[in-house]
């Protein structure tokens, strides 16, 4: 969450609740609603490490709100973030260990493991399809996030299929 918040502040100063709304709007219903508490905690940490600075703004009938802006160090950190490539997603290693170890234990059947895992993936896939159908057609970022999740899941399902072909 740290770097996305910094990135949102690159446009200009904002307070915590605005950032939560921006994030929701950008990522759509696909993304689990960011917890506002978590956002304030993260902002506190970013301020402590000198990447942002907060300024109290008085409000007439309510407590002061803190408006944050990016520091030079924050801008530097963002540059570095965009510069870096990210790690590849990892295969489902916990399931793989179950599959690899099942025959030796005599406690589980490999095909049954695969079938059960597939059911879960298919149900998740169904939920993602529903999310995609319900998402605003114009929110391309949100739709791409869902499509990415679906393609990952498709790859996992293909891999389960390979396991089943080999092990059956």
């Amino acid at each position, binding site marked *: 969450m*740290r770097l996305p918040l910094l990135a949102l502040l690159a446009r200009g100063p904002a307070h915590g609740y605005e950032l939560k709304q921006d994030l929701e709007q950008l990522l759509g219903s696909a993304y689990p609603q960011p917890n506002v508490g978590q956002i304030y905690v993260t902002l506190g940490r970013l301020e402590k490490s000198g990447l942002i600075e907060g300024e109290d703004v008085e409000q007439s009938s309510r407590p002061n709100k803190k408006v944050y802006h990016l520091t030079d160090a924050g801008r530097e950190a963002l540059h570095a973030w965009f510069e870096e490539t990210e790690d590849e997603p990892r295969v489902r290693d916990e399931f793989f260990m179950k599959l690899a170890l099942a025959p030796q234990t005599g406690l589980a059947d490999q095909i049954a493991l695969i079938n059960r895992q597939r059911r879960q993936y298919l149900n998740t896939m169904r939920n993602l399809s529903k999310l995609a159908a319900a998402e605003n057609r114009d929110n391309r970022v949100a739709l791409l996030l869902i499509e990415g999740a679906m393609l990952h899941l*498709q790859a996992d399902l293909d891999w389960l299929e390979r396991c089943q072909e080999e092990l059956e």
Partner: protein
Amino acid sequence: MSEDQVPVLRADGLVKTHHGEGAPAHAVRGVDLSVRRGEFVAITGPSGAGKSTLLHLLGGLQRPDEGSIWLDGRCTDSFGEARWAVERRKAIGIVFQFFNLVSNLSVADNVELPALLAGVPPKKARAEREELLAELGLTGKERSMPGELSGGEQQRVALARALVNHPPLLLADEPAGSLDSKGTREVMRLLSRFHGRGQTIVLVTHDARLASAADRVISFFDGRIADDAALDGTPPPRRGGISGVLELRD
């Protein structure tokens, strides 16, 4: 049994072996299957698992070596080629991966032809065609030839043709197999819509995204049903559920 309880489709002990060059290929090795009215069933599995052969058996495009098929409670054991052709006109609609439209007939004629062959009066056939093409977003394409349309449009015409006689059962064999991801989503949306109105669908696909539109998924391996699962959309028993898949790291 009341009418609702008679399965639209039932198969018992289906076996099909292909004898080509080389060793015989055991495409379907003992399949029992029952599809209730209004169900949307997807059959998935690796290529070569025999799922397309199974669908061809269910549509009477190939005959099983062993086993029987019932359509709406009627046993098809004694059906010949001609009788199956009648069933495919009235009781079973089929869409294929490569659309199989008649290339020298216009879109309108492709859709009306099965209605006319089934004895529907021309006026009614035209009305049905107009309604379906409008529904499928193809108004204005009536006079086009199939070759002038995109893959996604051709598949929608094929869907209209398959549904023009209101068959109780729709069979779809890799309907998105030659479409891009936009075309795939379109097919998925349309199948879901017709299913929502009560259309019974059996879909063969290797695409899990497409399969997830169904409410029951059969995993087919090596000529056999390996798993038969109802998709109820229940969130997996895991922290975060579906949103966990989408969660960005903090």
